[in-house]
């Protein structure tokens, strides 16, 4: 196989084929002269050499080759005292010329297709080299088949070895990652998870550089190739931006507490003088009071989100009766629900007590129940059910509300995300409630899931482990 490859690469060298052809022609002529074989061999023995010259150098050189062959043949015939008539010479000359032209055309076509091929390859490599992401394609065993320049650069910067399969190379730098054990575990999983696409983020210790790796299997196509594509992207700037945004949100929220303090403080002072106000005055005061408490809740939500992001929330665990929490959440929204003619029912099965952070869990339930009422039109119904089995307590909050479009359901737990059904109807909110709820539930080791049909309603299910 390698011998064949060597021969092919030799043939690619400029003028090598012509050199072989001229040498062949000289040898043929030598034999003709030495043995007086001009008739025995005939001009046909020059044909292959003419064809090769035409193929390698084109038509003009091919015609030159024909002239040379005819001349050599005539000299040999002359030496052998063979007389040739003009027709004999002419017919053979034309035949050779045809051969030279044909092979010149074949050569031209082959070179054109080679050039086109090289052009496409150059475009493709220019394309993959021009991205910011490091990209490589490996075979099923993880051996790199092709990689782009950014990847080669990153591999150097990260100190990965230049040999071995992709998983092996990734594993080799485990000690320089901030959480080496988790990273190692993840890379081992990756090596065995042939059929899955996955994304991972890791930070290089001491440098603050964060990378996101993505890998996806490339299924066997018609060409019979099966392997994996791997991309590596530096997301340091994104993470830094996240940190800055959270710090900014936290600072602003803390600063908002100053005006809030004087507003709510003086509101309290005014309470004593409320009797002296007229009916409208008391109404205005009530509006200010309501808005102040909303503003306060908003500031606390923003701060909680910042704390969650910074992983600074600590749970104070104590036995909690979830059914009792659900009933209290329902009572809290009862006035708003009654105003909208929305019924709120709590169905509590004998759910076991949980070891949980009561106020935090209360916050989750308040959030889900008030969402259910908020997003349900007049005459609708909200049902809160609490059920327990041996291992977990499941709380379901179901409404007959406006629902969430299917394509938005995946983002509904993201911070600041609000469903279009809510924004179109100008229903107030910050897009923080579900993000906070999910973070708090997950911190309790539980799960939160949502199913929804636009125009029919939404059901949120929270599952919390008993132990």
């Amino acid at each position: 196989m390698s011998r064949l490859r060597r021969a092919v690469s030799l043939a690619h060298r400029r003028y090598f084929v012509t050199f072989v052809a001229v040498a062949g022609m000289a040898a043929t002529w030598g034999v003709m002269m030495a043995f007086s074989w001009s008739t025995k061999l005939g001009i046909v023995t020059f044909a292959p050499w003419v064809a090769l010259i035409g193929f390698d150098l084109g038509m003009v050189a091919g015609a030159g080759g024909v002239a040379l062959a005819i001349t050599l043949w005539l000299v040999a015939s002359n030496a052998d005292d063979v007389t040739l008539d003009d027709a004999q010479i002419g017919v053979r000359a034309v035949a050779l010329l045809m051969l030279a032209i044909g092979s010149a055309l074949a050569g031209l076509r082959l070179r054109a297709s080679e050039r086109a091929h090289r052009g496409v390859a150059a475009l493709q490599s220019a394309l993959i080299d021009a991205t910011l992401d490091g990209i490589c394609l490996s075979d099923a065993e993880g051996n790199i088949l092709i990689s782009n320049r950014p990847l080669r650069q990153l591999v150097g910067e990260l100190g990965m070895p230049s040999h071995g399969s992709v998983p092996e190379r990734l594993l080799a730098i485990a000690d320089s990652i901030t959480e080496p054990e988790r990273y190692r575990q993840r890379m081992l999983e990756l090596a065995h998870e042939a059929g899955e696409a996955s994304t991972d983020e890791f930070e290089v210790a001491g440098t603050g550089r964060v990378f996101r790796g993505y890998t996806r299997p490339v299924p066997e196509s018609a060409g019979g190739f099966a392997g994996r594509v791997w991309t590596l992207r530096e997301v340091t700037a994104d993470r830094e931006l996240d940190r800055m945004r959270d710090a900014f949100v936290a600072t602003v929220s803390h600063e908002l507490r100053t005006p809030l303090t004087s507003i709510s403080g003086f509101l309290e002072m005014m309470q004593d003088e409320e009797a002296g106000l007229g009916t409208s005055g008391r109404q205005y005061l009530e509006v200010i009071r309501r808005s102040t408490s909303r503003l306060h809740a908003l500031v606390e939500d923003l701060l909680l989100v910042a704390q969650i992001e910074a992983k600074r929330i600590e749970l104070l665990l104590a036995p909690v009766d979830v059914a009792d929490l659900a009933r209290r959440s329902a009572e809290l929204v009862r006035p708003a629900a009654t105003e909208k003619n929305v019924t709120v029912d709590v169905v509590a099965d004998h759910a076991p007590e949980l070891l949980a952070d009561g106020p935090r869990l209360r916050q989750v339930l308040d959030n889900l129940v008030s969402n259910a009422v908020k997003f349900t039109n007049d005459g609708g119904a909200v049902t809160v059910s609490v059920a327990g089995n041996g291992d977990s307590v499941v709380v379901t909050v179901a409404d007959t509300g406006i629902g969430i479009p299917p394509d938005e359901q995946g983002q509904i737990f993201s911070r600041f995300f609000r469903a279009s059904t809510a924004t179109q109807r100008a229903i107030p909110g910050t897009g923080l409630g579900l993000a906070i709820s999910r973070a708090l539930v997950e911190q309790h080791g539980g799960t939160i899931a949502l199913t929804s049909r636009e125009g029919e309603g939404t059901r949120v299910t929270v599952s919390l482990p008993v132990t």
Partner: protein
Amino acid sequence: MKPRILIAEPNEDIRSLLELTVRRLGYEAVPAHERTDCRPIDAILLEPACAVGRSVLRRFGDAAPPVVCLSIYPREQGLEPPASVAYLVKPASTAAIADALRSVFGD
């Protein structure tokens, strides 16, 4: 004699709110910049996250009277001085502030 409470709060509106609260409780409100060497201070109402608050704490040093903190930052921020007896986060209600002050004097 009325207990004297020093108020170290950078925001003017909150300062007057605190003075009002303190006076309603029957105590004497002392501004942070006032000289305090003639008559002693019995308690400090303090925003620890500000220059005024820090300079008051420096001035009193180890001899600080009981301190009631009222801050825009939560306790976990680690701003609470050693002499602190209560830590409230803004916007705390005036009732909560009053309770904290009363408990300093055992009322």
